[in-house]
């Protein structure tokens, strides 16, 4: 597929601080790659396969231990995938999988490493992003220790409401875009446990679960429980 234009790259906040000439160099080194739903982009433990930035679609970041999976995050258009290998030459510390059809901008690993270390604005953006993700990871780890499953369910629902909730007459409506398995592995528990906890919230009148959507009826209570 064709290389992106500098205008397309300028719109990506991760690259916002780069000058026009730097964006041009980056654009020349880049190609767009298409991934099918569920296609693996790279695997945990493998050597760095390149720099990826999501052009369209979504990507799941997953850690696997034996047969168990933890969904670390679902990244959206504009977000870069694994940056850590460019900082320490190490392998990927998680796997990335397309969620639905996705198109990603791609730069091969060696070229990407040279560009990152040769472009101060890009290096600074990489360090900022990794720093911000570190903060998120520390919170994720503490939530797993401090919060029980119900509290973590409440927190995920509120985060989703904040990102994509639609205010309606009886509350905030969320499209059910996550499968039960995805929802559970985002919370860090088994499918049945996450589902039971969600049903309990429905019994208590805090949420209403329908086939295609969940309505948050009592956001204040949800926030108090999170």
């Amino acid at each position: 597929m064709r290389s992106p234009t500098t205008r397309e790259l300028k719109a990506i906040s991760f690259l916002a601080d780069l000058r026009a000439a730097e964006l041009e160099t980056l654009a020349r080194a880049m190609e767009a790659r298409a991934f099918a739903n569920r296609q693996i982009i790279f695997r945990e433990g493998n050597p760095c396969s390149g720099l990826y930035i999501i052009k369209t679609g979504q990507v799941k970041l997953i850690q696997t231990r034996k047969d168990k999976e933890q969904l670390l995050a679902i990244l959206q258009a504009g977000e870069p995938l694994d940056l850590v290998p460019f900082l320490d030459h190490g392998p990927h510390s998680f796997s990335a999988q397309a969620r639905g059809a996705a198109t990603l901008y791609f730069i091969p690993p060696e070229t990407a490493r040279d560009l990152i270390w040769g472009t101060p604005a890009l290096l600074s953006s990489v360090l900022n992003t990794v720093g911000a993700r570190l903060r998120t990871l520390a919170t994720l780890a503490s939530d797993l220790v401090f919060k029980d499953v119900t509290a973590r369910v409440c927190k995920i629902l509120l985060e989703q409401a904040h990102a994509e909730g639609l205010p309606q007459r009886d509350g905030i409506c969320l499209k059910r875009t996550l499968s039960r398995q995805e929802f559970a592995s985002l919370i860090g528990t088994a499918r049945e446990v996450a589902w039971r906890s969600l049903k309990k919230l429905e019994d208590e009148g805090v949420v209403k679960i329908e086939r295609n959507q969940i309505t948050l009826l009592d956001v204040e209570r949800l926030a108090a429980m999170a």
Partner: protein
Amino acid sequence: MPVSAEDLRSIFLFAQFEDSELELVREIVTARDYPARALVFSQGEPSPGLWFVRRGRVRLYRVAPSGREFTLCIARQDNLPCLGACPLFDGDRCPANAQALDAATVFFIARQRALEIAAQHDSMARLLARVLANHSRYLMRLTSSLALHCSTPRLIDLLLTCAQERGRLTERGIELDLDVSQNLLASLLGTTPQTIAQDFRALERAGVLDAQGKNIIIFGIEQLKRMI
């Protein structure tokens, strides 16, 4: 207190620095001593800069509204020695508390000075990159083990790491002294001291180790590895 070049080099992150680069760092670094249990920085405060643990141990921890504590990591000269890298870049507040576990000496560099040197000198930029990468990988392992394992495999994982780092091979097995109390061990594994005690008893019943306070003797390291 002034810091010598040898002092800085004793922290592995500075080992590859040229003499001239170390001189630059020496000009902006100060040594601070903390008594055991003193707070180095607090969660929610603006972050003044970077800390490098030279002597002793400093634990990074968070406190829940209930008062329960969770220790994210224990920083030492040879293990995750640099603290403060996360707020260094986003300028946001400290994401956790840091407390000296023993009498500790910590080297401090003010935020602005660290960023200035990193902008001008590749080796400082690479040091910060390495610190962020090390912390990222550590927290990745921590979150996956918290999400996917119960406390027993996490305890075993910690014991295996300690055994590898400072276990002594004796005729009885691999002996090691845990340098943490049961309470700290529990807060490090994200569980309660009672659960840790139960886990130890279960491992003893399985015949893989003997735990007398902080003294551990591992009889079957291979068996222990299989239990994760």
